[in-house]
Structures are given as C-alpha cells and as structure tokens.
C-alpha cells in the first residue's frame, strides 16, 4: 500500500514536472526509430536528418534500428512509445500499405505526422539486352503478351510492387511480377537478365544506366528526377502514371501540441537548409520539406491513390 502511494505520488510529481518543462522541450536525448536495417535508404536518410536535428534541438538524436516484420516492428515501437516527443521516427509508403494488408497493423491514427521528407518516385528500367528502346516499345510488348514480361519488384505490398501495380492499372497492362527481398536483389536480377524490367526508384539503377547495363525508360513523377534530368516522365511520353515511395517523419499520436510544433519546426528547418539538401542530393535523395499539415495531406492523398490498387490486386485483408 505504502509502495502504491509513493508510486502515485511520484507519478503525480513527474506529471507535474513534465507539464512544467514542456516549454523547455527537449532536455534529454531523442530516440529516432528506423524500421529497416542499418545501411538502407530509410536508415541513411534518417541518419542524415538526425545528425543535423540534434544540432538544432541541442540534444543528441540517437538512431535505433528496429528491423523486422517488413518494417512493422519499428512502427509498433513508435506507436507504443510515450507520446512525449522523445521517440520519433521515419516511415515510408509501406507503412501506409500495411494498414490494409497485415494482421495487427499499426494504423495511421496511432501516429502523428511531424514533417514530410521527400518523394522517391518509381521508375521503369529495362535491361540493356531487352528489345525495349522506349516506353512505347515496352507498353506495346506487354500489351501483346499479357502476364509474360517478368518485372522485378518487392514482395506484394512493398513500394516497388505498388509502383508496378499502379503502372499496370493505369495503363491496362498485365506483368509477371517477380518478388525479390529488397532493391539490391531486384537490381541484381535485372542486371543478370532474370527479369526484363524493374520498378525500383531511379537512384538504385542510375549508375547501371550510366554504364549502359540498363535503360531507364521513364520516371513515374510529375517532373524529371534531379539526378537524371534527361529521363522523361511517364506523363511526358503520354502515359498517366504517378507512383513511388516517399518518406515522412512521425511520432506516436497524442504528443503535446507545443512539443509536436517544436519538432516539426526543427525538422523543416533542417530539411530546408542548403547544406542538408546538398548532402541529401549527393546521396541520391529528393527533399521536399513540408510541415505537419501539408505532410498529413500528402500521406492521405497517397492513401486514397493506393487503396483501390491494393483492392484490385486482392491484397486487402483489413478493409478500410
């Protein structure tokens, strides 16, 4: 009993204390959850931001990798953390998709969006040995032999799978979608000729295009990719396809408004700085700093776009 009382007293005190220090947030290290292993795109971008975010906020921002279950382990870690602003992290499009395709998913209403990082548009790349010189060639060939052209992509629900599925549904195509565990094996299969095309983001194939091993036929974005301004968009070639991954920074739902605002402003400050943009661009990442509201709107737009595609592909096990 005595223990319970003192515990209650301690809790009341700490609640009071945390209320009082909310203005001086942050005053201890912040954990940044990455839901993929070290070295990947999510990890590299997170570390780029975290390093500079700690300069702006004046406390260390520690990146931790919670890898597993297709990114769900990390999302669960984020959603279940105390909403005090000391645990934040990055998510990508796969976390939006998993809401509808997974058992016991982490729903977006368990999370609070802090800022947008940037898009990572899909691209269509074909092997140099294939007969497809242009997007027209490719689309015509796939139409002629539905289900025959092997395309390398993620397992169902992954970003490059969804890019392929959006391309299929927008253009009325049917591919033979071959799943690989991540971008590296997909690119390997494309280079080795096991698949004829792949829908991975452009930075993954840029160097191979430069060396002539693959041809990038189009970018699934509104404007060309800054790394390859010569590669036309799908729209410029008369095909209405917009698809790809994106990254955003989130925390658990229910963060105090001032804490969320502090984090959101600091993130936008980092993401807008010329030095950061230069470093991120050099590493191949597109930056589009947006505050909490605009970021939420972007994610909702993606959700609205991708849900029908998931339904059509019969991937939805957890309907809206």
């Amino acid at each position, binding site marked *: 009993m005595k223990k319970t009382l003192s515990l209650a007293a301690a809790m009341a005190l700490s609640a009071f204390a945390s209320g009082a220090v909310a203005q001086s947030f942050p005053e201890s290290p912040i954990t940044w959850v990455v839901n993929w292993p070290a070295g990947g795109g999510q990890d590299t971008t997170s570390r780029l931001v975290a390093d500079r975010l700690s300069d702006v906020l004046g406390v260390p921002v520690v990146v931790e990798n919670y890898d597993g279950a297709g990114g769900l382990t990390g999302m669960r870690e984020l959603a279940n953390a105390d909403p005090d602003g000391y645990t934040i992290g990055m998510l990508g499009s796969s976390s939006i998709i998993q809401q509808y395709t997974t058992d016991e998913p982490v729903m977006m209403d368990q999370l609070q969006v802090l800022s947008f990082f940037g898009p990572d548009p899909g691209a269509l790349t074909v092997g140099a040995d294939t007969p497809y010189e242009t997007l027209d060639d490719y689309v015509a060939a796939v139409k002629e032999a539905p289900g025959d052209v092997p395309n390398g992509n993620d397992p169902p629900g992954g970003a490059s799978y969804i890019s392929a599925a959006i391309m299929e549904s927008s253009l009325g195509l049917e591919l033979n979608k071959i799943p*690989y565990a991540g971008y590296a094996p997909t690119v390997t299969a494309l280079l080795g000729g096991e698949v004829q095309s792949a829908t991975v983001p452009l930075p993954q194939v840029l160097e191979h295009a430069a*060396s002539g*091993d693959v041809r990038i036929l189009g970018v699934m974005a509104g404007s060309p990719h800054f790394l390859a301004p010569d590669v036309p968009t799908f729209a410029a070639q008369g095909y209405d396809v917009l698809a790809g991954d994106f990254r955003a920074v989130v925390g658990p739902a229910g963060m105090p408004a001032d804490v969320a605002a502090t984090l959101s402003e600091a993130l936008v400050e980092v993401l807008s700085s010329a030095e950061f943009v230069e470093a991120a661009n050099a590493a191949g990442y597109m930056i589009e700093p947006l505050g909490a509201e605009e970021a939420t709107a972007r994610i909702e737009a993606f959700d609205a776009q991708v849900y029908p595609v998931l339904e059509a592909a019969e991937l939805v096990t957890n309907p809206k």
Partner: protein
Amino acid sequence: MTQDLLATIFADLFTFSMIGLALLGVVLGLVFGALPGVSSTMALAVMLPFTYGMETAPAMVLMLAVFFSSVYAGSVSAILLNIPGTPGAMITLLDGHAMARKGEAAEAMAYALIASIFGGIIGWILLVALAPTIAGYALRFGSPEYAAVVLFGLALVAYASSGDTLRGLAAGAIGLIVGLVGRDQITDVPRFTFGTADLQGGIDIIPLAIGLFGVAEVLVLMTRPKSEMSEIPETRARTWPRWRSLRAELPTALRASTIGTFVGAIPAAGSAVAVALAYACEKRLSKTPEKFGTGLPRGVVAPEAANNACVGGALIPMMTLGIPGDSITAVLIGVLLLHGLRPGPGLFESQPDLIVTIYGALFVAIILTALVAGAIGIPVYRKILKIPQRILTAAVLILCLLGAYAVRNAVVDVWVAIFFGTLGFAFIKLNIPVLPLAFGAVLGPLLEENLRRTLVIHGDVGVFFERPISLVLVCLSFAILLVPLALSALSFLRRRPRRHSGL
C-alpha cells in the same frame, strides 16, 4: 594497379593517423564481435555516426577494420562459451567448443585466427585480382542456380550429419518448418504466426542459434549432478599449433577460402551458407568424418577460413556493381552514400583512388587483426575461462538473453532463445543432433524462396536441368543423397541370403 595498391598501402595507409584508426577499429571489432549476439552488422552500425565527420578514406579504414576483426571475433564466444556471436560462427562452435572442453581453448582460438587470416587474405587476393570476373559469374547466378546451390548444401548437410540418419533428418525437417514461420517472401502472407504480430518477422537465426547452442549448454550444466561437475580444464600452455599440423590443414583452408569468397560474392547468400558448404565439404572429403564434432582442428579451420573469405567476397558485388553482398556491406554502402559517393559499375573509372584505398584498408585490417588478436586478444580471451564455472554459467545465460534481444531490439527474440534452448536441451537428452535443425532453418527459406521464384518465372521444373550450373548442382545433390542409399540397399540385398543360410 598493383603498383598503385602498394604505393597506397605504404604511403597513405601507413601513416600515424590511419594506422591509429585501423587499430581502434580492430580493437572495437574484437570486442564487439566476441560479444554474443552483437553481429558485425551491429558493430558497424554503432560505428556509423563516427564516420560522418571523416573523409571517405579514413571512414572506410575504420569501418573495414571493425568489419574484418568482428567477423573473426565471432569465433571467440563460439569456442569459449558455445554461443555463436554471428551466423558464420555457428559451425565453428561444434569443434571449437569441443576443443575448449578438452582444454585446448587457446589452441582452438589460434586455429580460428590463423584460418581467419588465411581466408581473409585469399578473399582479398581474389577481390583484388578477379573482382570483375567473379562479379560476372555472380550475376549469372539467378534464382534456379541459387535454389540448386542451397539444395546442394542441404544434401551435403544431410550426408555429413553424423549418427542416426533418421534422427538427423527429423531434426532437419523441424528446422525447415521453423524456417517457414513469418511472412512468406513471395506472397507476403504470414505463416505459423499464431495470430501474433511478433512472429511476422520470422524466427531470426541468431536468437535461434543462441538458444539451441548457448542456452541449451547452460541447461545441461545446471542439471548436471554435483559429482559430475567438471570445470572446463585450464588451458594447456600451448597456444600456437605446430607447423606440421598447420600444414596438414592447408588444403582445407584453401578449399574453404575459395568456397567462402565465391559464396560471399553471390548477393544475399551470406556467410551462413558459405560455412555450411565448407564444413560439409570437408567432412565429406575426410577419411575420418566421425571425428568431426569431437574437437577436430579441421572443424574450426574450415568454417573460419570460409567465414572470413566471405569478407573479400562480399565486397566484390559492392565494388563492381554497387550491390551489397550482405547486410554488412549494406552498411558500408551507406557510409559511401553519406559521403556523397554512389558505388556502382562506374566506381572503377570515376574513383580509382577510392578502390585502391578500400583494397589497401582491408589488407591493413587483416594484418592488424592478426597482430592484435594474436598478441593481446587470445591471451585476454583465454582468461574468460579462469572465471569460476558457476559464475561463468550465470554470465553466459545473461549474455545469451541480452544477445538475443540485441539482434533486432525485440523481446520476442528472447523468448525464441529460451524456447530453442529448451528444445536443444531436450534434443541433447534424446540424443538428437541439433545442427540439422539450425541448417534447416537457415537454408530452408532460401531454398523455398528461390525455388518458388524460379517456378513463377519459368513455370516449369525443367529449367533446373536446362541450365548448366543448376544441372550439375542438382545432379550432385541427388548423387550425394541416393548413392549411399543405393549402396547400402545393395549390400543389404547381398547379405540377406547369407544371413538366411546362417539361421
């Protein structure tokens, strides 16, 4: 190229600051790698933030030093504590820990070190001399070839696992089922997750191995009656093996290093496959296969040479294609990206200096690992055995559970380790070999994924017999599995009439 390389090694890398950094990396790697559950990937991820402020060359020197030395040090906890720190050390513990129990812990560590350095250097030579050629072969390795090589590995393991074949096969089958747990790589459907989200990520091989070997060992020690309590004997004075016994291991080390380099160069194959192939191959070629697992130095040399040759092998696709060979090189690519360098086929033309620096840095890392581990590492590590058994046992259990947690920061992995610890304990009591279970869990998912992908692409099993690499591997696998069966059936038939007449 050779001249550049030598010039770089002597002029740029043998400077005070570079050697200091490499030394720091080697020491950190030797500490991280020896800790159970702290994989080389994790060691590199921990070091990642320190490379932000550095130039590319020193950053790569530091990371490669941590990389190579931690891969070697994975054998330390395997030999001393029977806990595999890394998947590559899973095989080392069989004979390594058996040697330790015979009082030859220091000698086992010395064999492991010499084999690691030898494997590292072979891998390095192949990397420097043949990287583009090997990368070309690695690209020809599509899903059918990959499925065939894993089938070959399983066949070798089935053949090589000693004792009761039926029990071994049963354990292997359990391993295959364990490998099915989690999201299926082809359709993304969760299997055997019992409705929990925790198992969707599958059963990670490190917690499984920590349980199967480490926790089970602790349970055996704890349930042993007091009268049977035997301390791990104090190490004999000899640390370094005799030259003659080393020379006898040379063919093994050469074969294992070659296997390690080539398997390491196949993207996503990883050291677990390489050590399995190397060990099974040695056991197959040995005249006394029954001695494997009883503390045979060859059982340490083969996996350790293969494991460390994988380092050079894994760098091949990274340097030539910009594709990570495993999770460790993925972190290295992350370092390059953070420095604004994009590894890819153009790296050789656009950044020849960087290529030479990386080659040189790996060489320096190998040499420093040999020196530091030999002079300081082994004498310090062997002190671990001076800790009283009861304290050591308790510490091992704690390290096992911590290590299991640290792999993915997941509590479920602690339960996985405890579960497989209990299972491993039961297996030991029932005299069922545990190794086939571990191999089944490692190789099963790889076989399934690639087999199913092959069928999705080609739609026909016939493809395995149309492609030369897979044809050879599949035929060899069947030969390994069926020839002994046919031979014993033949001798059984021949013997039967005689037995009959004897009645």
